[in-house]
Protein backbone atom coordinates (compact mmCIF):
# COMPACT_ATOMS: atom_id res chain seq x y z
CA UNK A 1 0.00 0.00 0.00
CA UNK A 2 2.71 2.47 1.06
CA UNK A 3 4.82 1.40 -1.87
CA UNK A 4 1.99 2.03 -4.22
CA UNK A 5 1.37 5.43 -2.69
CA UNK A 6 5.05 6.31 -3.10
CA UNK A 7 4.95 5.05 -6.62
CA UNK A 8 1.95 7.15 -7.47
CA UNK A 9 3.51 10.17 -5.73
CA UNK A 10 6.64 9.67 -7.82
CA UNK A 11 4.49 9.42 -10.90
CA UNK A 12 2.74 12.70 -10.05
CA UNK A 13 6.05 14.40 -9.41
CA UNK A 14 7.39 13.13 -12.74
CA UNK A 15 4.25 14.45 -14.38
CA UNK A 16 4.74 17.74 -12.61
CA UNK A 17 8.34 18.15 -13.70
CA UNK A 18 7.33 17.18 -17.20
CA UNK A 19 4.71 19.91 -16.99
CA UNK A 20 7.34 22.40 -15.82
CA UNK A 21 9.56 21.41 -18.74
CA UNK A 22 6.58 21.84 -21.07
CA UNK A 23 5.97 25.30 -19.62
CA UNK A 24 9.60 26.24 -20.19
CA UNK A 25 9.40 24.92 -23.72
CA UNK A 26 6.29 26.99 -24.33
CA UNK A 27 7.90 30.07 -22.81
CA UNK A 28 10.77 29.70 -25.25
CA UNK A 29 8.33 29.19 -28.09
CA UNK A 30 6.42 32.30 -27.04
CA UNK A 31 9.60 34.36 -26.96
CA UNK A 32 10.57 33.07 -30.39
CA UNK A 33 7.08 33.81 -31.62
CA UNK A 34 7.18 37.32 -30.22
CA UNK A 35 10.34 37.99 -32.21
CA UNK A 36 8.99 36.16 -35.23
CA UNK A 37 5.74 38.14 -35.39
CA UNK A 38 7.55 41.45 -34.84
CA UNK A 39 10.02 40.70 -37.61
CA UNK A 40 7.39 39.42 -40.07
CA UNK A 41 5.38 42.57 -39.41
CA UNK A 42 8.45 44.81 -39.80
CA UNK A 43 9.41 43.31 -43.16
CA UNK A 44 5.87 42.83 -44.52
CA UNK A 45 4.82 46.36 -43.60
CA UNK A 46 7.69 47.65 -45.74
CA UNK A 47 7.44 45.25 -48.66
CA UNK A 48 3.71 44.40 -48.59
CA UNK A 49 5.00 40.93 -49.38
CA UNK A 50 3.82 38.77 -46.48
CA UNK A 51 4.83 35.45 -48.05
CA UNK A 52 8.26 36.83 -48.92
CA UNK A 53 8.77 38.09 -45.37
CA UNK A 54 7.70 34.71 -43.93
CA UNK A 55 10.04 32.79 -46.23
CA UNK A 56 12.96 35.07 -45.49
CA UNK A 57 12.42 34.83 -41.74
CA UNK A 58 11.98 31.08 -41.90
CA UNK A 59 15.40 30.90 -43.52
CA UNK A 60 16.83 33.34 -40.98
CA UNK A 61 15.57 31.23 -38.04
CA UNK A 62 17.01 28.09 -39.67
CA UNK A 63 20.35 29.87 -40.10
CA UNK A 64 20.22 30.88 -36.42
CA UNK A 65 19.65 27.26 -35.39
CA UNK A 66 22.75 26.26 -37.34
CA UNK A 67 24.96 29.16 -36.30
CA UNK A 68 24.09 30.11 -32.72
CA UNK A 69 25.04 26.76 -31.14
CA UNK A 70 28.57 27.29 -32.50
CA UNK A 71 28.99 31.04 -32.06
CA UNK A 72 26.66 31.65 -29.11
CA UNK A 73 23.53 33.80 -29.14
CA UNK A 74 24.36 37.26 -30.55
CA UNK A 75 23.92 40.37 -28.38
CA UNK A 76 20.99 41.53 -30.47
CA UNK A 77 19.29 38.37 -31.72
CA UNK A 78 16.48 40.22 -33.48
CA UNK A 79 18.93 42.43 -35.38
CA UNK A 80 20.90 39.32 -36.36
CA UNK A 81 17.75 37.64 -37.67
CA UNK A 82 16.69 40.77 -39.52
CA UNK A 83 20.02 41.07 -41.31
CA UNK A 84 19.88 37.40 -42.27
CA UNK A 85 16.30 37.80 -43.49
CA UNK A 86 17.19 40.87 -45.53
CA UNK A 87 19.92 38.89 -47.29
CA UNK A 88 17.39 36.15 -48.13
CA UNK A 89 14.83 38.68 -49.37
CA UNK A 90 17.32 40.23 -51.75
CA UNK A 91 18.59 36.84 -52.95
CA UNK A 92 15.04 35.65 -53.56
CA UNK A 93 14.13 38.79 -55.48
CA UNK A 94 17.22 38.44 -57.68
CA UNK A 95 16.41 34.81 -58.36
CA UNK A 96 12.82 35.45 -59.34
CA UNK A 97 13.19 38.66 -61.34
CA UNK A 98 9.62 38.32 -62.46
CA UNK A 99 7.61 41.13 -63.96
CA UNK A 100 5.73 41.70 -60.74
CA UNK A 101 8.72 42.49 -58.56
CA UNK A 102 8.60 46.15 -59.53
CA UNK A 103 6.24 47.04 -56.70
CA UNK A 104 8.74 46.02 -54.04
CA UNK A 105 11.44 48.54 -53.45
CA UNK A 106 14.26 46.41 -52.10
CA UNK A 107 16.55 49.34 -51.46
CA UNK A 108 13.90 50.87 -49.22
CA UNK A 109 13.65 47.67 -47.16
CA UNK A 110 17.43 47.32 -47.02
CA UNK A 111 17.70 50.88 -45.70
CA UNK A 112 14.95 50.32 -43.15
CA UNK A 113 16.69 47.18 -41.88
CA UNK A 114 19.99 49.06 -41.76
CA UNK A 115 18.45 51.85 -39.69
CA UNK A 116 16.66 49.45 -37.34
CA UNK A 117 19.79 47.39 -36.76
CA UNK A 118 22.03 50.43 -36.21
CA UNK A 119 19.65 51.97 -33.68
CA UNK A 120 19.75 50.98 -30.02
CA UNK A 121 15.97 51.16 -29.82
CA UNK A 122 14.02 47.89 -30.14
CA UNK A 123 12.75 46.91 -33.60
CA UNK A 124 9.58 48.95 -34.28
CA UNK A 125 6.42 46.97 -33.54
CA UNK A 126 4.31 46.89 -36.70
CA UNK A 127 2.11 43.97 -35.67
CA UNK A 128 -0.97 46.14 -35.30
CA UNK A 129 -0.48 47.38 -38.87
CA UNK A 130 -0.11 43.78 -40.00
CA UNK A 131 -3.36 42.83 -38.23
CA UNK A 132 -5.21 45.66 -39.94
CA UNK A 133 -3.90 44.43 -43.29
CA UNK A 134 -5.02 40.86 -42.52
CA UNK A 135 -8.51 42.03 -41.53
CA UNK A 136 -8.83 44.60 -44.33
CA UNK A 137 -12.32 44.82 -45.86
CA UNK A 138 -10.76 43.78 -49.20
CA UNK A 139 -9.80 40.41 -47.66
CA UNK A 140 -12.39 37.61 -47.64
CA UNK A 141 -13.86 37.64 -44.09
CA UNK A 142 -13.54 33.85 -43.80
CA UNK A 143 -9.78 33.98 -44.29
CA UNK A 144 -8.99 36.88 -41.93
CA UNK A 145 -8.68 34.76 -38.80
CA UNK A 146 -6.58 32.06 -40.53
CA UNK A 147 -4.38 34.77 -42.02
CA UNK A 148 -3.69 36.24 -38.57
CA UNK A 149 -2.92 32.80 -37.20
CA UNK A 150 -0.35 32.35 -39.89
CA UNK A 151 1.27 35.78 -40.08
CA UNK A 152 1.23 36.76 -36.40
CA UNK A 153 1.42 33.36 -34.73
CA UNK A 154 3.39 31.49 -37.37
CA UNK A 155 0.95 28.53 -37.62
CA UNK A 156 1.37 26.33 -40.68
CA UNK A 157 -1.52 25.91 -43.10
CA UNK A 158 -2.10 22.27 -42.07
CA UNK A 159 -2.64 23.16 -38.41
CA UNK A 160 -4.96 26.04 -39.29
CA UNK A 161 -6.88 23.81 -41.71
CA UNK A 162 -7.49 21.14 -39.09
CA UNK A 163 -8.69 23.72 -36.58
CA UNK A 164 -11.14 25.24 -39.06
CA UNK A 165 -12.21 21.85 -40.44
CA UNK A 166 -11.02 22.63 -43.96
CA UNK A 167 -8.82 20.50 -46.22
CA UNK A 168 -5.16 21.56 -45.85
CA UNK A 169 -4.73 22.16 -49.58
CA UNK A 170 -7.82 24.39 -49.61
CA UNK A 171 -6.60 26.38 -46.61
CA UNK A 172 -3.15 26.70 -48.17
CA UNK A 173 -4.70 28.08 -51.35
CA UNK A 174 -6.87 30.56 -49.48
CA UNK A 175 -3.89 31.86 -47.51
CA UNK A 176 -1.75 32.22 -50.63
CA UNK A 177 -4.58 34.01 -52.42
CA UNK A 178 -5.05 36.43 -49.50
CA UNK A 179 -1.33 37.23 -49.31
CA UNK A 180 -1.23 37.79 -53.05
CA UNK A 181 -4.18 40.11 -52.72
CA UNK A 182 -2.37 42.16 -50.06
CA UNK A 183 0.66 42.49 -52.31
CA UNK A 184 -0.99 42.94 -55.68
CA UNK A 185 -3.94 45.10 -54.68
CA UNK A 186 -1.71 47.33 -52.56
CA UNK A 187 -3.52 46.79 -49.26
CA UNK A 188 -1.81 49.21 -46.88
CA UNK A 189 -0.17 48.30 -43.57
CA UNK A 190 -1.54 51.14 -41.53
CA UNK A 191 -3.59 51.81 -38.46
CA UNK A 192 -6.72 53.48 -39.86
CA UNK A 193 -7.41 57.05 -38.82
CA UNK A 194 -10.02 58.02 -36.23
CA UNK A 195 -12.94 58.13 -38.67
CA UNK A 196 -12.36 54.61 -39.96
CA UNK A 197 -10.96 53.02 -36.85
CA UNK A 198 -14.11 51.69 -35.14
CA UNK A 199 -15.26 49.72 -38.19
CA UNK A 200 -11.81 48.47 -39.10
CA UNK A 201 -10.95 47.55 -35.54
CA UNK A 202 -14.19 45.61 -35.40
CA UNK A 203 -12.96 43.39 -38.25
CA UNK A 204 -9.71 42.77 -36.39
CA UNK A 205 -11.54 41.93 -33.17
CA UNK A 206 -13.97 39.69 -35.03
CA UNK A 207 -11.11 37.69 -36.52
CA UNK A 208 -9.49 37.34 -33.09
CA UNK A 209 -12.79 36.22 -31.59
CA UNK A 210 -13.12 33.65 -34.39
CA UNK A 211 -9.71 32.25 -33.42
CA UNK A 212 -10.81 32.02 -29.80
CA UNK A 213 -14.22 30.52 -30.63
CA UNK A 214 -12.64 27.77 -32.75
CA UNK A 215 -10.65 26.73 -29.71
CA UNK A 216 -13.45 27.16 -27.19
CA UNK A 217 -15.88 25.08 -29.24
CA UNK A 218 -13.94 21.97 -28.33
CA UNK A 219 -15.17 21.61 -24.75
CA UNK A 220 -13.87 18.11 -24.25
CA UNK A 221 -10.41 19.57 -24.99
CA UNK A 222 -9.54 16.39 -26.81
CA UNK A 223 -7.91 18.30 -29.60
CA UNK A 224 -4.81 20.03 -28.27
CA UNK A 225 -4.45 22.25 -31.32
CA UNK A 226 -7.93 23.64 -30.89
CA UNK A 227 -7.53 24.13 -27.16
CA UNK A 228 -4.41 26.13 -27.88
CA UNK A 229 -6.40 28.27 -30.31
CA UNK A 230 -8.44 29.67 -27.41
CA UNK A 231 -5.21 30.69 -25.68
CA UNK A 232 -3.88 32.13 -28.93
CA UNK A 233 -7.05 34.19 -29.34
CA UNK A 234 -6.52 35.63 -25.88
CA UNK A 235 -2.86 36.28 -26.69
CA UNK A 236 -3.85 38.19 -29.85
CA UNK A 237 -6.45 40.14 -27.91
CA UNK A 238 -3.90 41.10 -25.28
CA UNK A 239 -1.55 42.18 -28.05
CA UNK A 240 -4.17 44.54 -29.48
CA UNK A 241 -4.88 45.92 -26.00
CA UNK A 242 -1.18 46.53 -25.43
CA UNK A 243 -0.89 48.37 -28.74
CA UNK A 244 -4.24 50.23 -28.56
CA UNK A 245 -4.71 50.63 -24.80
CA UNK A 246 -7.59 53.09 -25.00
CA UNK A 247 -9.97 51.16 -27.25
CA UNK A 248 -12.82 50.01 -25.00
CA UNK A 249 -14.04 47.30 -27.40
CA UNK A 250 -10.60 45.67 -27.51
CA UNK A 251 -10.67 45.57 -23.70
CA UNK A 252 -14.22 44.23 -23.85
CA UNK A 253 -13.22 41.41 -26.17
CA UNK A 254 -10.36 40.30 -23.93
CA UNK A 255 -12.69 40.45 -20.90
CA UNK A 256 -15.23 38.33 -22.78
CA UNK A 257 -12.63 35.73 -23.77
CA UNK A 258 -11.21 35.55 -20.25
CA UNK A 259 -14.68 35.06 -18.74
CA UNK A 260 -15.39 32.22 -21.17
CA UNK A 261 -11.96 30.72 -20.64
CA UNK A 262 -12.50 30.79 -16.87
CA UNK A 263 -15.36 28.32 -17.31
CA UNK A 264 -13.65 26.09 -19.86
CA UNK A 265 -13.25 23.08 -17.60
CA UNK A 266 -16.57 23.52 -15.80
CA UNK A 267 -18.52 22.59 -18.93
CA UNK A 268 -17.86 18.90 -18.33
CA UNK A 269 -18.06 16.80 -15.18
CA UNK A 270 -15.55 14.12 -14.23
CA UNK A 271 -17.28 11.60 -16.49
CA UNK A 272 -17.23 13.88 -19.52
CA UNK A 273 -20.92 14.77 -19.21
CA UNK A 274 -22.13 18.18 -20.28
CA UNK A 275 -22.86 20.63 -17.46
CA UNK A 276 -24.97 23.67 -18.43
CA UNK A 277 -23.88 27.05 -17.11
CA UNK A 278 -26.69 27.20 -14.54
CA UNK A 279 -25.60 23.88 -13.02
CA UNK A 280 -21.88 24.64 -12.92
CA UNK A 281 -20.17 24.89 -9.55
CA UNK A 282 -18.71 28.42 -9.37
CA UNK A 283 -15.81 26.97 -7.39
CA UNK A 284 -14.74 25.20 -10.57
CA UNK A 285 -14.37 28.52 -12.42
CA UNK A 286 -10.94 30.10 -12.69
CA UNK A 287 -11.15 33.01 -10.23
CA UNK A 288 -7.91 34.57 -11.43
CA UNK A 289 -9.16 34.86 -15.02
CA UNK A 290 -12.54 36.19 -13.88
CA UNK A 291 -10.88 38.88 -11.79
CA UNK A 292 -8.67 39.94 -14.67
CA UNK A 293 -11.74 40.06 -16.94
CA UNK A 294 -13.58 42.25 -14.42
CA UNK A 295 -10.65 44.65 -14.16
CA UNK A 296 -10.47 45.02 -17.94
CA UNK A 297 -14.21 45.49 -18.24
CA UNK A 298 -14.15 48.23 -15.59
CA UNK A 299 -11.33 49.96 -17.43
CA UNK A 300 -13.35 49.78 -20.66
CA UNK A 301 -16.47 51.07 -18.89
CA UNK A 302 -14.65 54.19 -17.73
CA UNK A 303 -14.10 55.15 -21.39
CA UNK A 304 -17.86 55.63 -21.84
CA UNK A 305 -18.18 54.08 -25.29
CA UNK A 306 -20.21 50.92 -25.18
CA UNK A 307 -20.14 48.17 -27.80
CA UNK A 308 -20.90 44.57 -28.60
CA UNK A 309 -17.92 42.98 -26.86
CA UNK A 310 -18.26 45.01 -23.69
CA UNK A 311 -21.94 44.10 -23.48
CA UNK A 312 -21.26 40.41 -24.08
CA UNK A 313 -18.54 40.50 -21.46
CA UNK A 314 -21.03 42.21 -19.12
CA UNK A 315 -23.49 39.30 -19.45
CA UNK A 316 -20.63 36.95 -18.57
CA UNK A 317 -19.84 39.17 -15.64
CA UNK A 318 -23.46 39.01 -14.45
CA UNK A 319 -23.27 35.21 -14.57
CA UNK A 320 -19.96 35.26 -12.73
CA UNK A 321 -21.42 37.14 -9.72
CA UNK A 322 -23.01 33.83 -8.71
CA UNK A 323 -19.54 32.92 -7.44
CA UNK A 324 -19.85 35.69 -4.84
CA UNK A 325 -23.60 36.02 -4.15
CA UNK A 326 -24.78 32.48 -4.88
CA UNK A 327 -27.31 33.65 -7.45
CA UNK A 328 -27.25 34.91 -11.00
CA UNK A 329 -28.26 38.52 -11.66
CA UNK A 330 -30.94 37.75 -14.27
CA UNK A 331 -32.46 41.23 -14.20
CA UNK A 332 -29.11 42.73 -15.17
CA UNK A 333 -28.69 40.08 -17.85
CA UNK A 334 -32.06 40.91 -19.45
CA UNK A 335 -31.11 44.59 -19.48
CA UNK A 336 -27.77 43.91 -21.13
CA UNK A 337 -29.38 41.67 -23.74
CA UNK A 338 -31.88 44.43 -24.48
CA UNK A 339 -28.97 46.75 -25.25
CA UNK A 340 -27.17 44.06 -27.27
CA UNK A 341 -30.31 43.31 -29.25
CA UNK A 342 -30.76 46.98 -30.08
CA UNK A 343 -27.14 47.08 -31.24
CA UNK A 344 -26.88 43.85 -33.23
CA UNK A 345 -30.45 42.68 -33.99
CA UNK A 346 -28.95 39.19 -33.75
CA UNK A 347 -31.38 36.26 -33.37
CA UNK A 348 -28.80 34.50 -31.19
CA UNK A 349 -28.92 37.43 -28.76
CA UNK A 350 -32.72 37.35 -28.91
CA UNK A 351 -32.74 33.68 -27.84
CA UNK A 352 -30.45 34.37 -24.90
CA UNK A 353 -32.61 37.31 -23.95
CA UNK A 354 -35.75 35.16 -24.02
CA UNK A 355 -34.11 32.61 -21.71
CA UNK A 356 -33.07 35.37 -19.29
CA UNK A 357 -36.54 36.89 -19.46
CA UNK A 358 -38.01 33.53 -18.41
CA UNK A 359 -35.93 33.78 -15.23
CA UNK A 360 -37.27 37.20 -14.30
CA UNK A 361 -40.82 37.07 -15.71
CA UNK A 362 -41.55 33.35 -15.94
CA UNK A 363 -41.42 30.81 -18.78
CA UNK A 364 -44.58 32.08 -20.54
CA UNK A 365 -42.95 35.47 -21.19
CA UNK A 366 -39.77 33.72 -22.34
CA UNK A 367 -41.78 31.60 -24.78
CA UNK A 368 -43.62 34.66 -26.07
CA UNK A 369 -40.27 36.35 -26.74
CA UNK A 370 -39.10 33.22 -28.60
CA UNK A 371 -42.34 33.06 -30.57
CA UNK A 372 -41.67 36.58 -31.80
CA UNK A 373 -38.62 35.15 -33.57
CA UNK A 374 -40.66 32.35 -35.14
CA UNK A 375 -40.40 33.51 -38.72
CA UNK A 376 -36.60 33.81 -38.78
CA UNK A 377 -35.65 30.99 -41.15
CA UNK A 378 -32.10 30.91 -39.75
CA UNK A 379 -33.42 29.44 -36.52
CA UNK A 380 -34.94 26.32 -38.05
CA UNK A 381 -31.63 24.47 -37.79
CA UNK A 382 -30.13 26.34 -34.84
CA UNK A 383 -29.84 23.98 -31.88
CA UNK A 384 -29.87 26.56 -29.04
CA UNK A 385 -33.22 27.88 -30.26
CA UNK A 386 -34.85 24.44 -29.97
CA UNK A 387 -33.13 23.62 -26.67
CA UNK A 388 -34.28 26.93 -25.20
CA UNK A 389 -37.81 26.38 -26.47
CA UNK A 390 -37.87 22.83 -25.10
CA UNK A 391 -36.70 23.97 -21.66
CA UNK A 392 -39.30 26.73 -21.46
CA UNK A 393 -42.13 24.52 -22.74
CA UNK A 394 -41.24 21.92 -20.11
CA UNK A 395 -41.55 24.57 -17.43
CA UNK A 396 -45.00 25.58 -18.61
CA UNK A 397 -46.00 21.90 -18.46
CA UNK A 398 -46.51 21.44 -22.21
CA UNK A 399 -44.75 18.07 -22.25
CA UNK A 400 -45.73 17.06 -25.79
CA UNK A 401 -44.45 20.25 -27.40
CA UNK A 402 -41.33 20.15 -25.18
CA UNK A 403 -40.58 16.62 -26.37
CA UNK A 404 -40.91 17.67 -29.97
CA UNK A 405 -38.54 20.63 -29.47
CA UNK A 406 -36.02 18.41 -27.63
CA UNK A 407 -36.06 15.93 -30.53
CA UNK A 408 -35.32 18.75 -32.94
CA UNK A 409 -32.46 20.02 -30.73
CA UNK A 410 -31.01 16.51 -30.32
CA UNK A 411 -31.06 16.00 -34.07
CA UNK A 412 -29.14 19.24 -34.64
CA UNK A 413 -26.47 18.88 -31.93
CA UNK A 414 -23.04 17.72 -33.13
CA UNK A 415 -21.44 17.35 -29.67
CA UNK A 416 -22.14 13.87 -28.21
CA UNK A 417 -21.98 15.08 -24.59
CA UNK A 418 -24.54 17.83 -25.18
CA UNK A 419 -26.67 15.38 -27.14
CA UNK A 420 -26.62 12.93 -24.22
CA UNK A 421 -27.63 15.74 -21.88
CA UNK A 422 -30.55 16.78 -24.08
CA UNK A 423 -31.69 13.16 -24.41
CA UNK A 424 -31.67 12.84 -20.64
CA UNK A 425 -33.70 16.02 -20.22
CA UNK A 426 -36.20 14.74 -22.75
CA UNK A 427 -36.51 11.43 -20.94
CA UNK A 428 -36.98 13.25 -17.60
CA UNK A 429 -40.07 14.99 -19.01
CA UNK A 430 -42.13 11.80 -18.66
CA UNK A 431 -40.63 10.84 -15.33
CA UNK A 432 -41.01 13.98 -13.28
CA UNK A 433 -43.42 16.08 -15.31
CA UNK A 434 -42.42 19.68 -15.60
CA UNK A 435 -39.07 19.67 -13.87
CA UNK A 436 -37.49 22.92 -12.81
CA UNK A 437 -35.14 23.88 -15.57
CA UNK A 438 -32.72 26.61 -16.27
CA UNK A 439 -30.90 27.80 -19.32
CA UNK A 440 -30.33 24.98 -21.76
CA UNK A 441 -27.90 26.89 -23.85
CA UNK A 442 -24.42 25.43 -23.67
Amino acid at each position, binding site marked *: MAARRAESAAATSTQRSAAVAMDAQRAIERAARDSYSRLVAFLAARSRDVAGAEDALGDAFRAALETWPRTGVPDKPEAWLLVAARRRLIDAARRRRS*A*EEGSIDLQLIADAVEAAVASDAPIPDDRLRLMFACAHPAIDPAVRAPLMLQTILGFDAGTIASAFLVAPATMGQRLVRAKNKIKQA*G*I*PFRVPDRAELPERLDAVLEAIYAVFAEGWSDPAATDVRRRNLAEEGIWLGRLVVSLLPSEPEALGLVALMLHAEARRGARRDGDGNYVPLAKQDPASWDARLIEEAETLLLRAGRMNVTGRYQLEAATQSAHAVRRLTGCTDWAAIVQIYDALLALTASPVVAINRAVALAETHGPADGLAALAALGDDARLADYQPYWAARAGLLARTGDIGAAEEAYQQAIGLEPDPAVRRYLQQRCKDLRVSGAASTNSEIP
Partner: protein
Amino acid sequence: MQYLLMIYGNEERMLSATKEATSQMIAAYTAYTEAIKKAGIYVGSNRLQPARTATTVRAPNGKSSVLDGPYAETKEQLGGYYLIDVPDLDAALSWAARCPGAAHGAIEVRPIWATKSGEYQQIASAQGST
Protein backbone atom coordinates in the same frame (compact mmCIF):
# COMPACT_ATOMS: atom_id res chain seq x y z
CA MET B 1 0.38 52.39 -57.50
CA GLN B 2 -2.01 52.83 -60.37
CA TYR B 3 -5.61 51.71 -60.07
CA LEU B 4 -8.39 51.50 -62.61
CA LEU B 5 -11.74 52.57 -61.23
CA MET B 6 -14.35 50.92 -63.45
CA ILE B 7 -17.79 52.46 -63.24
CA TYR B 8 -20.64 49.99 -63.61
CA GLY B 9 -24.22 51.15 -63.77
CA ASN B 10 -27.67 50.53 -65.16
CA GLU B 11 -27.48 52.03 -68.65
CA GLU B 12 -31.18 51.92 -69.33
CA ARG B 13 -31.90 54.00 -66.28
CA MET B 14 -29.07 56.37 -67.11
CA LEU B 15 -30.25 56.88 -70.70
CA SER B 16 -33.87 57.37 -69.71
CA ALA B 17 -33.06 59.88 -66.97
CA THR B 18 -34.61 63.34 -67.18
CA LYS B 19 -32.63 66.13 -68.74
CA GLU B 20 -32.23 67.78 -65.37
CA ALA B 21 -30.95 64.60 -63.71
CA THR B 22 -28.53 64.03 -66.59
CA SER B 23 -27.04 67.50 -66.43
CA GLN B 24 -26.77 67.17 -62.67
CA MET B 25 -24.86 63.90 -63.17
CA ILE B 26 -22.53 65.46 -65.71
CA ALA B 27 -21.83 68.36 -63.37
CA ALA B 28 -21.04 65.90 -60.58
CA TYR B 29 -18.59 64.01 -62.80
CA THR B 30 -16.95 67.26 -63.92
CA ALA B 31 -16.39 68.27 -60.31
CA TYR B 32 -15.08 64.79 -59.46
CA THR B 33 -12.63 64.85 -62.36
CA GLU B 34 -11.44 68.30 -61.28
CA ALA B 35 -10.90 67.05 -57.72
CA ILE B 36 -8.86 64.09 -58.95
CA LYS B 37 -6.71 66.38 -61.09
CA LYS B 38 -6.19 68.84 -58.22
CA ALA B 39 -5.09 65.95 -56.00
CA GLY B 40 -2.38 65.21 -58.54
CA ILE B 41 -3.40 61.57 -59.00
CA TYR B 42 -5.09 61.79 -62.40
CA VAL B 43 -3.70 59.53 -65.13
CA GLY B 44 -6.68 59.25 -67.45
CA SER B 45 -10.44 58.86 -67.73
CA ASN B 46 -13.15 58.29 -70.32
CA ARG B 47 -16.83 57.76 -70.64
CA LEU B 48 -17.87 54.89 -72.89
CA GLN B 49 -20.69 54.74 -75.41
CA PRO B 50 -23.52 52.43 -74.28
CA ALA B 51 -23.00 48.67 -74.31
CA ARG B 52 -25.32 48.30 -77.31
CA THR B 53 -22.55 49.89 -79.38
CA ALA B 54 -20.14 47.14 -78.33
CA THR B 55 -18.78 44.47 -80.63
CA THR B 56 -16.99 41.42 -79.25
CA VAL B 57 -14.25 39.60 -81.12
CA ARG B 58 -12.75 36.19 -80.42
CA ALA B 59 -10.11 34.45 -82.46
CA PRO B 60 -9.63 30.87 -81.29
CA ASN B 61 -7.18 28.93 -83.46
CA GLY B 62 -6.68 31.94 -85.66
CA LYS B 63 -10.31 31.96 -86.79
CA SER B 64 -11.91 35.18 -85.75
CA SER B 65 -15.55 35.54 -84.92
CA VAL B 66 -17.28 38.84 -84.41
CA LEU B 67 -20.39 39.19 -82.30
CA ASP B 68 -22.75 42.06 -81.76
CA GLY B 69 -22.98 43.15 -78.13
CA PRO B 70 -20.81 43.35 -75.02
CA TYR B 71 -18.61 40.56 -73.60
CA ALA B 72 -21.26 39.79 -70.97
CA GLU B 73 -24.92 40.72 -70.98
CA THR B 74 -25.58 42.09 -67.53
CA LYS B 75 -27.94 44.66 -66.13
CA GLU B 76 -25.05 46.82 -64.97
CA GLN B 77 -22.55 47.62 -67.66
CA LEU B 78 -19.13 49.27 -67.76
CA GLY B 79 -19.86 52.90 -68.51
CA GLY B 80 -16.51 54.58 -67.98
CA TYR B 81 -13.29 54.57 -66.03
CA TYR B 82 -10.72 56.62 -64.19
CA LEU B 83 -7.06 55.67 -64.03
CA ILE B 84 -5.46 57.10 -60.90
CA ASP B 85 -2.06 56.91 -59.22
CA VAL B 86 -2.27 56.72 -55.42
CA PRO B 87 -0.13 55.21 -52.64
CA ASP B 88 -2.35 52.26 -51.71
CA LEU B 89 -5.70 50.49 -51.95
CA ASP B 90 -7.26 52.53 -49.13
CA ALA B 91 -6.60 55.72 -51.05
CA ALA B 92 -8.03 54.17 -54.23
CA LEU B 93 -11.11 52.97 -52.33
CA SER B 94 -11.77 56.38 -50.83
CA TRP B 95 -11.63 57.96 -54.32
CA ALA B 96 -13.91 55.22 -55.65
CA ALA B 97 -16.43 55.97 -52.90
CA ARG B 98 -16.52 59.64 -53.99
CA CYS B 99 -17.21 58.78 -57.63
CA PRO B 100 -20.77 59.87 -58.56
CA GLY B 101 -21.30 56.43 -60.12
CA ALA B 102 -20.90 54.76 -56.73
CA ALA B 103 -24.24 56.22 -55.63
CA HIS B 104 -26.13 54.45 -58.43
CA GLY B 105 -24.06 51.43 -59.38
CA ALA B 106 -20.73 49.94 -58.43
CA ILE B 107 -17.10 50.87 -58.85
CA GLU B 108 -14.69 48.00 -59.37
CA VAL B 109 -11.19 48.91 -58.24
CA ARG B 110 -8.39 47.01 -59.95
CA PRO B 111 -4.66 47.53 -59.48
CA ILE B 112 -2.67 47.92 -62.68
CA TRP B 113 -0.11 45.19 -63.23
CA ALA B 114 3.22 46.85 -62.44
CA THR B 115 6.46 45.76 -64.03
CA LYS B 116 10.01 45.55 -62.77
CA SER B 117 11.05 48.94 -64.08
CA GLY B 118 8.01 50.54 -62.50
CA GLU B 119 6.37 51.09 -65.86
CA TYR B 120 2.93 49.87 -66.74
CA GLN B 121 2.68 47.63 -69.75
CA GLN B 122 0.21 45.51 -71.59
CA ILE B 123 -1.10 42.43 -69.85
CA ALA B 124 0.01 40.19 -72.73
CA SER B 125 3.67 41.10 -72.44
CA ALA B 126 3.60 40.97 -68.64
CA GLN B 127 2.25 37.44 -68.75
CA GLY B 128 4.80 36.46 -71.39
CA SER B 129 7.81 37.52 -69.34
CA THR B 130 7.38 35.32 -66.26
